[in-house]
């Protein structure tokens, strides 16, 4: 190795060492609130709100978790597992039905020709910018008869203009050759979609699934408008009910919070390897 090479190697090492220091410091600051949540969830309430000592991992136990399950275990308060099940059912329904409905629509817009297609697609593009918040109040009025159910929490979110748009940009970029071959082999449009387009679109499916799951899981506004019965209440809404009931035990509230992010964490970790590339490519193209 020449001296110049060694020198270059040394500066590179120095640089990456500096990067690590900067990254670690930033990450510490950045993760502090999340760490506070996790460590606090194992601490007695009095230790949670005790200044910087709130960070110390002392007096740890599972008591808070046990109390969350114990105090949310009657018909009147609702059951913790019921809230969890509600959230999971709603989120999965919106993800699964949403993937089917939106990918089908996107494929139709990108690949099939039918009357009214272009105009319909224009409507979809226009609706991308309508945030859900802008229709929540009138929707409450329209769906008031369905309040306090699981369906009312999922129904408005199946069709999603942004998801259609994400699928659309992907299908548009897909090479047509295989599809044309499939059509020659006698596969109909739907068959081509299912057999050819869907398998090659895994990354977009993963991206849309993650985005949909995250937003649905965290829904607060809509359930707060349509749900008053604990039987149908999803977790985030229950978090605000739970943390509003006197006297508040902050340790228990944080334990509840930790349980709230666990499923979405699992969901994210299982699909995340597709996530970055796909979201990026659609953003860059869009």
């Amino acid at each position, binding site marked *: 190795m020449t001296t110049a090479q060694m020198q270059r190697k040394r500066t590179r090492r120095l640089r990456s060492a500096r990067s690590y220091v900067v990254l670690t410091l930033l990450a510490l600051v950045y993760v502090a609130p999340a760490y506070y949540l996790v460590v606090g969830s194992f601490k007695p*309430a*009095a230790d949670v*709100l005790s200044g910087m000592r709130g960070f110390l991992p002392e007096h740890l136990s599972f008591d808070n978790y046990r109390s969350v399950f114990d105090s949310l275990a*009657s*018909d*009147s*308060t609702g059951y913790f597992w019921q809230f969890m099940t509600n959230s999971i059912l709603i989120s999965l329904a919106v993800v699964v039905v949403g993937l089917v409905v939106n990918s089908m629509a996107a494929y139709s817009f990108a690949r099939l020709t039918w009357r*009214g297609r272009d*105009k319909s697609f224009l*409507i979809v593009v226009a609706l991308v910018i309508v945030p859900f918040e802008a229709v929540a109040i009138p929707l409450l*009025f*329209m*769906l*008031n*008869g369905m*309040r306090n159910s699981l369906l009312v929490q999922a129904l408005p979110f199946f069709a999603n203009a942004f998801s259609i748009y994400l699928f659309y940009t992907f299908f548009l970029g897909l090479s047509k050759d295989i599809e044309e071959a499939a059509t020659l082999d006698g596969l109909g449009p739907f068959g081509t979609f299912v057999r050819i387009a869907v398998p090659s679109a895994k990354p977009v499916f993963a991206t849309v699934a993650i985005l949909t799951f995250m937003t649905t899981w965290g829904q607060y506004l809509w359930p707060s408008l349509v749900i*008053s*019965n*604990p039987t149908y209440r999803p977790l985030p809404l229950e978090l605000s*009910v739970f943390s*509003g*009931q*006197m*006297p*508040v035990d*902050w340790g228990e509230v944080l334990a509840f919070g930790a349980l709230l992010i666990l499923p979405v964490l699992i969901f994210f970790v299982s699909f995340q390897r597709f996530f970055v590339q796909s979201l990026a490519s659609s953003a860059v193209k869009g």
Partner: protein
Amino acid sequence: MNHRKKAGASVVAVTAAAMLLASCSSGGGGTSSAGDGTGDVEVWAHQGKDSEVAALQDAVANFNASQSDITVNLTLVPEADYTTTIQSTSASDLPDVLELDGPTLANFVYDAKVAPIGDYVSQATIDNASAGNVNQGTVDGTLYALAQFNSGLGLCANGALLDDAGVTYPDSIDSAWTADEFRSALQTLAAANDSGYALDIKENYGLGGEWGTYAFSPLLQSAGGNLIADNEASGVIDGPESVSAMEAFQSWLPYVDPNEDDAAFVDGRVAISWCGHWMYPGYSEALGDDLVILPLPDMGTGTKSGAGSWTWGMGSTTGQGTAAGAFLDYLLNDQNVAAMTAANGAPPATKSVLASDALYSAGGPLELWGKQLEASCNADAITSDCVTVLRPLTAGYPVITSEFASALSAIATGGDVQSALTGAATAIDQSFADNNDYQ
């Protein structure tokens, strides 16, 4: 091409119109009927403290065991959602018997959600209800609800801390602290305490909720102001008297402990707590003989306090009037009223139990609050002798309380008093104007 665009738009319009219609048709009032006095009776109640829940569950179980004709099924709804739940349930889906927060009753009558109970509960039960109780349950001369208990509100103080700081305190309704005396007491107490605080106003309950109106609207009335007068809030809730009361309130805030752990008073971080009767059992256990009960500060026209609490009514479409009445008679008998008030420390709302109550009758530790309740009046007829004022008995109460409470929480975070109260006045008056004064 143009006609097709129109067709698309009209599909949307038709869908919208259909949904508009569909959601309008769900209303409609109902009429109650007596039924044959047997069968199931559905009951909804708010989920209060564990001890209250236990007392109610015992009452239901004992009632079911005491006879074989009627079966009561109890459903508990969390307190925070209770009123919203009733509001958002159509009249036909409401149960036979339901608990209601006193001041919301007029609104539920207005929305045809509750039935008159005079025909179904026995005359003896009605006669035994205290005057304030009947007052709270009566709308336009018709009785809709009766309560097991009333409520008491004042200051709970830590006598030892007051004495140590050399602060003298009132011993009767007439000698209540004036606003200035109260502030200087807070100042002295805060200086004497390591925490730097002197007062707990249960900020952890959220001043923007019903607690805000219940606990702090008496300050307006004590100053000579009010929430509303003759269906008009402008010049009343934001009149000079009300503004001065809220400015005084704002001047106490530097001494207020945030109380996020709900333990400021029992831990001795503050010497005084804005105090509802339900806090008494816990406070008395923690402080023992050091706990003293004081009236709220006198803002000018004599101390005023709050009254009214949860009460029992019947769903407007019940087909079980007789059976429901029998259950209410049972719930309001001496045994169950005594059990409930023992559980929550509330002043009994029936004459017979109040007379023998150990806490509120003469010589009891809460005698002062008992006396306050004897001098009770409605919000539209406040006299100088009256101490406890019921919250306004109008169907427009929900908008009054939410507007006042949200103004209060704006004031509590340092907002301008006059503009917060004027904002509330405008919103209340608009709502009354839109709804024909809720007549």
